[in-house]
C-alpha cells in the first residue's frame, strides 16, 4: 500500500470542481463505471455535454488562432491545422470547453491565440487549467502515477518528494519514464503534463487521495468519494 502524492492549490478548486463535474456528467450519461483514458474529449463534448463541435479553417481570424468558442450558443470550433497534432488538438478542444462551461457570463465569443501575451490573461489561464483538469483528473493522475512509479522506484510515495528536492536519479526517472508514460496515457503533450504537475502540490499532511499502486483506473464511485474528502 502506498499513498497519493498530490493535492490541489486552494485557488484551483473552483476550476477543478467544474472539470470534475463535467467528467462525472459524462461518465453517468455513458453509464461508465470507470474513467476511460485518454478522456474521449470530442465524443464527450458532442455527446453528453451537448456542444456543437466543428473543425474549421480559422485562418481568416488570424494566423495563430487555434480554436474559438461561443459559450452562449454552446459552439466550439477547432482549427484544421491541429487535426494531426493529437495532444494539442485535445488540449485546445478542452480549453474551449473550459470557456463554454466557465465563462458563459463573461463573453459570448472567445478566440484562442497561440500567443504568450494572450495566455497571460486570467481567463485564458483558467481555460488552460480547466483543460488540464479535464484531461488529467487528479484521481486518475494519482492512480497512473502510482502505477508507473511502482515499477521504477522502491517507494513510489517518496518519488515526487525526491523530484522536488532535485534528486538526480528521481528526476531522471520522472523525465525519462514517468512523464512519457503519462503523456501517452492521458493523450496530452509534454508541456501540458508538466503544466499539470505545476498545478498540484505535495501534501504537507495526510495524503489527499489514498490509492493502491498498480490499479489502472479507480471506480467512479471511489473517485466520487475521494473528491468528497477534499
Amino acid at each position, binding site marked *: 500500500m502506498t499513498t497519493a502524492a498530490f493535492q490541489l492549490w486552494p485557488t484551483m478548486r473552483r476550476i477543478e470542481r467544474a472539470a470534475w463535474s463535467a467528467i462525472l456528467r459524462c461518465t453517468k450519461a455513458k453509464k461508465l463505471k470507470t474513467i476511460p483514458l485518454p478522456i474521449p474529449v*470530442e*465524443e464527450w463534448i458532442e455527446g453528453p455535454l451537448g456542444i456543437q463541435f*466543428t*473543425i*474549421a*479553417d480559422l485562418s481568416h481570424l488570424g494566423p495563430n488562432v487555434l480554436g474559438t468558442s461561443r459559450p452562449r450558443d454552446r459552439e466550439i470550433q477547432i482549427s484544421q491545422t491541429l*487535426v494531426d497534432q493529437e495532444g494539442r*488538438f485535445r488540449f485546445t478542444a478542452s480549453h474551449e470547453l473550459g470557456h463554454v462551461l466557465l465563462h458563459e457570463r463573461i463573453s459570448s465569443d472567445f478566440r484562442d491565440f497561440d500567443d504568450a501575451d494572450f495566455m497571460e490573461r486570467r481567463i485564458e489561464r483558467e481555460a488552460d487549467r480547466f483543460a488540464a483538469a479535464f484531461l488529467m483528473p487528479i484521481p486518475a493522475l494519482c492512480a497512473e502515477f502510482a502505477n508507473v512509479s511502482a515499477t521504477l522506484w522502491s517507494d513510489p510515495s517518496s518519488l515526487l518528494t525526491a523530484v522536488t528536492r532535485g534528486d538526480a536519479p528521481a528526476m531522471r526517472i520522472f523525465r525519462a519514464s514517468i512523464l512519457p508514460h503519462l503523456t501517452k496515457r492521458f493523450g496530452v503533450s509534454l508541456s501540458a503534463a508538466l503544466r499539470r504537475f505545476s498545478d498540484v502540490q505535495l501534501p504537507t499532511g495526510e495524503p489527499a487521495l489514498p490509492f493502491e499502486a498498480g490499479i489502472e483506473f479507480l471506480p467512479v464511485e471511489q473517485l466520487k468519494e475521494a473528491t468528497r474528502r477534499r
Partner: protein
Amino acid sequence: MAKRTVRSPKKDPASIGERLRTQRVEVLGKSIRDIAKLLASAPIHLSDIETGRRAPSEELLLKMAKVYDLPEAELRAGFGKPHSVVAEVASESTVAAEKVPEFLRTARGLSAEQWDKLIKQAKKVSAEEKDAKP
C-alpha cells in the same frame, strides 16, 4: 434485410447534415476525426458537410452511406444528388430526353406507395413490350 425508412425526403443540406451528426454522435459514438479516418477524408470536409456548407462527391456519398449506416437514398435526397441512372435514362434517346422530364414532373410529390404502384406498372408495360418483340 430489413427495409429502412427514408426520413429526409426533401433536399435540405442543413437538415441532412444534422441527421448525419446525430447518427455519428448518438448512434455510432464516433468523433468527426474517427469518421474522417474511416472515409479517408479530411475532418474539415466532413465538418463542413455536417454543417450544411458542402455536399459530398458521388464517391464520398456512397462511402458515407456505409460508414454512417444510413440509407443511400436518404443522403441522395438530402444533398439533392440523384442516382446516375436518372441522367443515363433521361438521355439515352430523343424520346427519353423529352418524356422523362415530363414523367418526373407529373410524378413529383408521389408517396412511396404510389411510386411502388408506378414501378409495378412500368415493369408490366416493359414486360409486355419485350413479349411483343419477335
